[in-house]
């Protein structure tokens, strides 16, 4: 092996790599917010009295969890325009990440809701609260607390999945690094650096979740 490492192209590309990290971060945060909305909304519909709504959610979860993310994002980006829905790469990536993460979040949050003792619902109803209020004010927070570690790892995974959005050239770390790599042919240096960046992004994300958890779920349990 007489390969000489040369980080010059990486150093020169550092400003664009760092901004691309922000792109990745933004994609991930937007994707997570959407996934959380879909997750909580999906759990509510999944418990609905109206059977077709339940079936809709069950089918959605099965469809998303049993197909590749790359195909899902291609479907939105390349196939949906034929129906007149034409989106830019970044919105496409956010929606795909949100839908994909949301399907997993539904199952995770549902597990949390099921872990809450029935007495909590009954106490709320006996106090004259409506079912919706009981879910929102009594069940949801303890349910999220119970499954927060699982949700954290799912969302770290979602963060890393943003790299697949490079396939439709969304603005994020992997697509920017591909550009630097194809201009310089410095594959090792570029992907070594990008690996470190992803590691830092994941770690930051976990810290963020831990901080959120310490703030929002601080109440003691037995």
């Amino acid at each position: 092996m007489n390969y000489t490492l040369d980080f010059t192209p990486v150093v020169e590309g550092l400003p664009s790599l760092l901004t691309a990290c922000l792109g990745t971060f933004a994609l991930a945060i937007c994707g997570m917010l959407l996934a959380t909305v879909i997750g909580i909304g999906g759990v509510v519909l999944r418990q609905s009295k109206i059977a077709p709504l339940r079936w809709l959610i069950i089918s959605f979860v099965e469809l998303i969890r049993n197909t590749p993310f790359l195909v899902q994002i291609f479907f939105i980006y390349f196939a949906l325009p034929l129906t007149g829905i034409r989106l830019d790469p970044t919105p496409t990536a956010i929606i795909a990440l949100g839908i994909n993460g949301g399907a997993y979040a539904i199952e995770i949050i549902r597990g949390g809701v099921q872990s809450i003792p029935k007495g909590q619902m009954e106490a709320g109803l006996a106090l004259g609260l409506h079912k919706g209020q009981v879910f929102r004010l009594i069940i949801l927070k303890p349910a999220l607390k119970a499954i927060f570690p699982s949700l954290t790892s799912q969302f770290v995974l979602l963060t890393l999945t943003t790299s697949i959005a490079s396939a439709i050239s969304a603005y994020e770390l992997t697509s920017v690094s591909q550009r630097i790599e194809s201009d310089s042919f410095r594959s090792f240096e570029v992907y070594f650096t990008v690996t470190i960046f992803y590691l830092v992004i994941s770690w930051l994300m976990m810290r963020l979740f831990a901080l959120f958890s310490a703030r929002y779920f601080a109440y003691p349990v037995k």
Partner: protein
Amino acid sequence: MNDISTTVDSTHPMISMSGVEKWYGAFQALRNINISVEKGEKIVLCGPSGSGKSTLIRCINHLESYQKGVIRVGGIVLGHQAKTIDAVRREVGMVFQQFNLFPHLTVLENCMLAPLRALRLGKEEAEARARQLLERVKIAEQADKYPAQLSGGQQQRVAIARALCMRPQVMLFDEPTSALDPEMVKEVLDTMIGLAEEGMTMICVTHEMGFARQVADRVIFMATGAIVEEAPPAEFFSNPKHERTRKFLGEILGH
């Protein structure tokens, strides 16, 4: 359309159940239940486990549905429509065996939640009411703690205060001391006795026969989903009429 009354009317008994029957599939949980409870009356409901006593009181605030019969709370006929169920639940407080405090809310917030959200009181009024009732169950100094930081007895007293914050006309107690360590039973019973002395209408499912002797106007004994015997406590304990009642009393008082 018939008019559905949703306000309590003082000319009716506080609670009446007539011909109430309930099944879980093929299993009959309640058989022809007829009870009338006047305002201010205290009823103790006892019986072996599985006799339907919890099911009975859970029908009164419609945590359980029933297939036959009529339940009235005040003048309100408890139908299966959301409107009458809501009206009844606002008048009927319930205390559970497992306390069922909300773990993510402080003691004060537990007490304020329903007045804020179900009665739509203002924040100040709800808080004043909550503090006053926490004072009454002698736990005001714990207002900012979370349920997990309290003992079982303290938690159950908070649960009583929480129910009272809705200013209910009736209180239902579903084995309120059964999950407590023995040394905490008294503080909860004392709270309940205090409530009884203030004239609250109460139905208590309990095996605390001392409590029954001291505060009950009537003791109702149930077995296999039916009311077997109903008498004032003095008579109930000294002169039970039915063999089933004697056997039950022998089992719980015999040691």
